[in-house]
């Protein structure tokens, strides 16, 4: 049988980078092919070529045996290729129907839009593929998972039968991701073919029929979920053995570094989001703050790092009262901060890597003498840190906005970890990163702990918290409901606390019950 889609020898060069190096790919009818690779491996470039957003330098594309050229997404759609982007291409103030018909409007009596006809088709499609959605709902009112369904319906409406999903689960909750997988299975059952781009191993093993791994622009192997396991896939992806679990010794907790007492913080809307929180973080331990996003973790971190003024309570860093100190004062006392939103707070995207490396200490020797910036010193340091922290960039003068997410995060980590610090505040340090980067950053955090640094780790990934923390504080609606030593914490128990179940009802955790799953 002719494959639905065949790519032959696709090559794409960007200045300084060979993004795709003679990639061959075959997609059969009714299968889910997972395209697995680290950030920056070339998956997205390949798919953008297929979707007509880039032109390949070499190579050919065949759809059902027919050679095609794709100059624009329009060509791709005509050839039956559709893409669900990671960031949705929907207009929030339009209804589902209007969004679906946009660019493929059905009309009656000349130029009048025929919404009803489109809505009818949407209903048919919804029923056939179990994509429940109200055609007349406004997109802005829909949850993210349903918005994604609208994207899928858009493609089916245009009769695409090769569907590309670009990191579709990145924006979904675990439940929504499960629902998506059900939909994907339904789609292939009815003869559609799917390319599923991801770097999450668990999902690949769960959903795909075949797995193709790309590394540094090359296909490095093909396998099936039956033959592979996480460790093997991770190894193929990264090119070396990856330790999926963090190795660490028992913490040797020292003196109290960070002391927070009865802290009350309000958010930008003046709502109290941190409501009387007290805890200590000691030198040489990792205190993990678990909790569903939006339970006050963001404001807690901002208060500790001086970015937000608390309403009441005290924060002491190494014995000094820093409740109302400026961020710079807190930094100078030895606090490093890996912020939750790296692009918003942690980096200046239009500045080169080197200036971002110097962002927090640019005003001090060796980076400055008086008010004179020492460009050479900054460059030298940047070059060294690019080596040490394995930041993939063509050079220190490339704008940080041009790097992949994982490498952007490495720039922050390099900057924050490379100066002498006593407290590390890491907020969602591995959000959106691939296996290699997660492993790397986890290792570095544990290293810092072992050097005697106090670590406050905030993450909405429970697995990450379970893996790294020595003690786990669970936040729910602005309060810390419990602080549990890691060896007594089970995923189930912490999960219940996160969901708002009181510690008594959740039941005391059983020692020895601890089962840690990898984050990946």
């Amino acid at each position, binding site marked *: 049988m002719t494959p639905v889609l065949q790519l032959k020898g696709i090559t794409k060069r960007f200045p300084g980078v060979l993004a795709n190096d003679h990639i061959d790919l075959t997609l059969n009818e009714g299968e889910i092919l997972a395209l697995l690779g680290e950030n920056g491996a070339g998956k997205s470039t390949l798919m953008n070529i297929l979707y007509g957003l880039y032109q390949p330098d070499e190579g050919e594309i065949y759809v059902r045996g027919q050679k095609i050229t794709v100059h624009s997404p329009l060509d791709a759609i005509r050839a039956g290729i559709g893409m669900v982007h990671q960031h949705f291409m929907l207009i929030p103030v339009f209804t589902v129907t209007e969004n679906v018909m946009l660019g493929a409007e059905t009309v009656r009596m000349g130029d009048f839009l025929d919404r009803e006809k489109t809505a009818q088709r949407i209903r048919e499609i919804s029923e056939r593929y179990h994509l429940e959605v109200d055609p007349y709902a406004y997109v802005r009112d829909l949850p993210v998972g349903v918005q994604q369904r609208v994207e899928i319906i858009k493609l089916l409406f245009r009769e695409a039968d090769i569907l590309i999903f670009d990191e579709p689960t990145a924006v979904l909750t675990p439940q929504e991701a499960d629902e998506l997988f059900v939909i994907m299975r339904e789609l292939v059952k009815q003869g559609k073919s799917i390319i599923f781009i991801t770097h999450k191993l668990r999902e690949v093993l769960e959903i795909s029929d075949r797995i193709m791994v790309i590394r540094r622009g090359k296909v490095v192997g093909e396998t099936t979920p039956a033959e592979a396991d996480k460790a093997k896939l991770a190894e193929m992806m990264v090119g070396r053995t990856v330790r999926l679990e963090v190795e660490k010794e028992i913490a040797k907790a020292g003196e109290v570094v960070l002391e927070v007492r009865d802290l009350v913080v309000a958010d930008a809307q003046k709502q109290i989001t941190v409501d009387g929180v007290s805890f200590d973080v000691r030198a040489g331990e990792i205190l993990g703050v678990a909790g569903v996003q939006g339970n006050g973790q963001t404001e807690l971190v901002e208060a500790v790092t001086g970015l937000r003024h608390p309403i009441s309570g005290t924060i002491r860093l190494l014995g000094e009262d820093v409740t109302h100190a400026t961020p710079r004062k807190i930094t100078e006392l030895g606090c490093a901060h890996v912020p939750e939103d790296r692009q918003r707070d942690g980096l200046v995207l239009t500045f080169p890597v080197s200036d971002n490396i110097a962002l927090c200490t640019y005003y001090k020797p060796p980076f400055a003498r008086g008010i004179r910036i020492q460009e050479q010193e900054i460059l030298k340091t940047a070059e060294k840190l690019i080596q040490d922290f394995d930041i993939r960039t063509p050079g220190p003068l*490339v704008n940080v906005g041009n790097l992949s997410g994982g490498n952007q995060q490495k720039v922050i980590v390099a900057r924050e970890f490379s100066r002498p610090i006593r407290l590390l505040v890491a907020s969602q340090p591995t959000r959106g990163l691939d296996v290699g980067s997660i492993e790397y950053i986890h290792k570095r955090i544990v290293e810092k702990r072992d050097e005697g640094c106090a670590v406050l780790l905030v993450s909405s990934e429970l697995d990450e918290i379970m893996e790294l923390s020595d003690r786990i504080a669970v936040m729910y609606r602005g309060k810390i409901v419990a602080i549990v030593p890691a060896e007594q914490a089970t995923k189930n128990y912490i999960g219940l606390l996160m969901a708002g179940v009181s510690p008594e009802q959740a039941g005391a955790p059983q020692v020895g019950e601890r089962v840690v799953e990898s984050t990946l």
Partner: protein
Amino acid sequence: MSENKPKQDAGKVFLEEVTGQSEEAQRIKGWRKTGRTLVVPLLAIFTGLVFGAIFIVVTSEDVYAAFRVSFGSGMATVWKTIIQSYQALFTGALGDPARIISALQSGNPLEIRRAVNPILESLVNATPYIFAGLAVALGFRSGLFNIGVEGQLFIGAAAATAVGIFVKGLPQIIHAPLAFLAGALGGALWGFIPGWLKAKTGAHEVINTIMMNWIAFRLTEWLLSGPLTRPGSGGLPISPIIEKSAEIPQFFPPPIRFHLGFFIALAFAYAVHWLLFKTTWGFDLRTVGANPNAAKYAGMNITKNIVLAMTLSGALAGMAGANQILAVNRSMALGLSPGYGFDSIALALLGNSTPMGVVLASLLFGALRNGATRMELLYIPNDIISIIQALILAFVAAPAIIRTIYRIRVPKEAEEAVFTGSWGGGNK
């Protein structure tokens, strides 16, 4: 990842357009890069002149008359008009090459000076543009849109005039710098106020600087008909002539007006470059401009930097005004500025908000303005030059037009940068 990016206001997006891409070009040296950054502005100038020619032709009475005779003579007149106009523009701006050569051969210093005077006069014209353009560029780099340069320029001029008139008995070496400094301080004050309002209350600098402009205009009107009025001017809003000692010296006897202010402007261009790109203060300003959140995270004082940026920007604008008074006009009148402050926004844009770019753009504008005077002798309205300037700017502001006309490919890095932002490697 769902991105909760703060909603960007249009001004911000514009500022990123203006300053965003140049960072790399700033740093990466080599002719290829320089060529790439220059290619669009140069083609924009060329295209602006081509389109300008159309306007010259369609507004020319001669051309219509000739077409009434015959198509052939019409076309001939079209060519003649265009060539004559641009010849006038060129010789008006840069002098007549033949005359310069023969003057050099004759060795007569007076004749040489007269021959090269158009060039010198272009530099005189460029000087206020440099100061004012630097003011806007410094604001852009710091994330601020200073539309108040015109008002700051007027206040600066008034302050310089006051010191030039009322302070007496000082030697020139002290009096002239003092008057210039007064101009800078006047402008600085006029920039400080909207800066302070923005930092403390969040009031948008665009609105406030526009309002400050109106206050400045009315204030100078009052000053020129009140405390600063020239005795016996018969109610004309014009100031007395400043003391000799307050003058910024001109190098040659009249009518050549070329003066020291031009070199002061160049020195300030270098100073702004140094401040922005070589000092910690500049690092602060640029970071606050590029990403205030990251600036706060990095421990910078946003309030202080906004106020500082507006104050410095105002000071540079004030210098533009002081320069015109002390070096060129020697007294203050309401017609002091033909819109330097507003043209400077365009200049900063044309110069990609770099001091070097501002200097080059100012030289161009100075030359065009100067050449326009000569074109007027051919009954070509001065406004044609404004149209040409506007066209050049439109093409610079919308490089896609130039790229389409000349089929220039978008630089690959830019292409990649755009796409990794929105489609590709995602995973923010």
